[in-house]
């Protein structure tokens, strides 16, 4: 247990890097085999190179697990939250909500709200947050839509802004 808590992030990342080769082997044996490209010569075998990487990653992951278990890692990586970790998680939640609503409500309705919300969460006053959110969104839209001809998400209300 005393080797897990101080290296919590190391173990989480280790699990990711252990899972990755397993996914590669699984996909090679299923999807790539079904497509008939999991064996044969170098030009026909699309699984050859990914499998080599998977073996390499697996070896490195095992080696790293050994280092972790023996405590041979120079820097610890505990799950120690700071005073503002909760704020960072709230911001991440807001961003996920933003991504979910963006295709439906469009850029011009969602982005000023997100920006104003973030500014307010970070401690900026309400009026300044509102003004800041609107100005940031409009300036960015003006550059991308007006100058670079990018079509930003219009949503169901089809608000095009500068487009």
């Amino acid at each position, binding site marked *: 247990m005393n080797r897990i808590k101080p290296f919590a992030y190391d173990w989480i990342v280790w699990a990711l890097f252990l899972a990755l080769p397993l996914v590669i082997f699984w996909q090679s044996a299923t999807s790539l085999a079904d497509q008939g490209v999991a064996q044969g010569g170098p030009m026909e075998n699309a699984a050859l190179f990914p499998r080599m990487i998977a073996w*390499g990653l697996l070896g490195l992951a095992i080696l790293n697990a050994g280092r972790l278990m023996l405590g041979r890692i120079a820097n610890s990586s505990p799950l120690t939250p700071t005073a503002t970790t909760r704020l960072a998680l709230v911001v991440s939640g807001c961003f996920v909500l933003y991504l979910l609503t963006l295709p439906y409500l469009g850029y011009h309705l969602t982005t000023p709200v997100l920006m104003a919300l973030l500014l307010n969460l970070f401690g900026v006053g309400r009026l300044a947050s509102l003004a800041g959110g609107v100005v940031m969104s409009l300036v960015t839209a003006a550059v991308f839509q007006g100058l670079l001809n990018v079509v930003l*998400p219009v949503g169901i209300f089809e608000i095009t802004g500068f487009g």
Partner: protein
Amino acid sequence: MFDLLVQGAPLFLTWQAIVLTAAGIIAGLFIGVLPGLGPLMGIVLLLPVAFHLPPIPAMAMLIAIYVGGSAGGSISAILLRIPGTPLAAATLFDGYPMAQKGRSQDAIGLAITASALGGLLAGLVLLFFSPILAAFALKFGPPEYTAMALLGLLTIAIVSEGSAIKGMIAGAFGLAIATMGTDEFTNAYRFTFGNFNLTSGPHIVPVVVGLFALSEVFFQIEGGKLLDSPQIQKLRISFRALRLITAHKVNLVRSALIGTFLGAIPGAGGDVSAFVSYAVAKRTARPEDGYGEGAEGGVVATEAANNGTCGGALIPSLSLGIPGDASTAVLLAALFLLGFFPGPELFRNNADIAGGIFIAYLVGNLVLLVAGIVLVPFFGSVLKLPKAWLLPIVLLLSTVGTYALQNSVFDLWVMLVFGAIGYGLRRAHYPLAPIIIGMILGPVLENNFRRSLLISRDGLSIFIERPTSAILLALAALLVAYVLFTVIRGPAKPDAN
């Protein structure tokens, strides 16, 4: 050498390229000044904009951000004792004491001047050596390219910050991501999980933006002090540094060359070259020069080396297609996406583009010399910008820029996923640069590996039958042996913080 410049001049000498070079330098300086951000962040944030521009103006803008951002970090190191970028960490040894003695104006002026002149010297080296290296690499076949890509990736993975084994894991992770999408030889879908958005694999831009920008936003929020605004001394425009630097000619040239040399070694990076140059300058200085107490030579050495590294890192990047650091890896990605392949073919088939890039780098350093000094009064104002305002701007630019690439909300989810991965990796002290370099070198490595096996009559033996690939692979094997030795020997001393 000059043929390239002549061929590239018509492409560069347009109002768009010149204006974007100047804008890139200014943007790079401001991004470099802000602690926590840096040239890489600047390139990442403006990468999506570059794809809406013609090739040379786009590359000129990104290279200018690289040059300006590398120099900008010194300003906060001098004024606040907080390096804006890791590249400027060594600058505070003498830059901050100079500011404490009331010479912040001189320190900033010297830092900018040394950066620009160091960058120009590196540009000349780049101009001379890149075509030679590219001409040599023209003789390479698939086995040599395979060995070179493998050695390049291993070098970067091992030399990157943190443990070598973590660097290698990160590099392998990048290679794995690069295999996603449609296989070039069989047209089979690999690891797409039935999602049509992944038929070309994840786009490199959302991956880069997620790993670097998004994870940084999360880190900065966790760091707190969102409304803090530091007190900055009043600054004014002064060209005095141009006279002061004449007393440090030898130091300037030596440091720029050290920076260029170390920059050309994949993975060595600007921070290493700045510390090495500082150590050399200090060793060769007289005791009365007072290194560590506000010596002008200390600032000149570190900053000339920093920007020398930029030119150095472009040498293997452009001539071999092997990026020297994370910033050049993203620059290479930009060049790929603009339709050009870095490496010897660039010099043979698109000499005008190579020449245009060289001119952009040289002009960028000239603009830095002027803009860096003229804009000094504004740097103080930028440093006063609280994180509460800066972070939403970074998030907004990341989001809109990433979306703009392919008008795809899916790319934003990719960005978010890689933001979370980047955060976890940074918390676990994994370097992020090898992931990007793995993604870029992955297709080069795989295609040449499979082609080598096709032309080989005896499987893998082709790699040791050809002398160049055998030498490169022997070097790669030595690097792996070194990593295994460090693993067996045990960990290094923990960081002080």
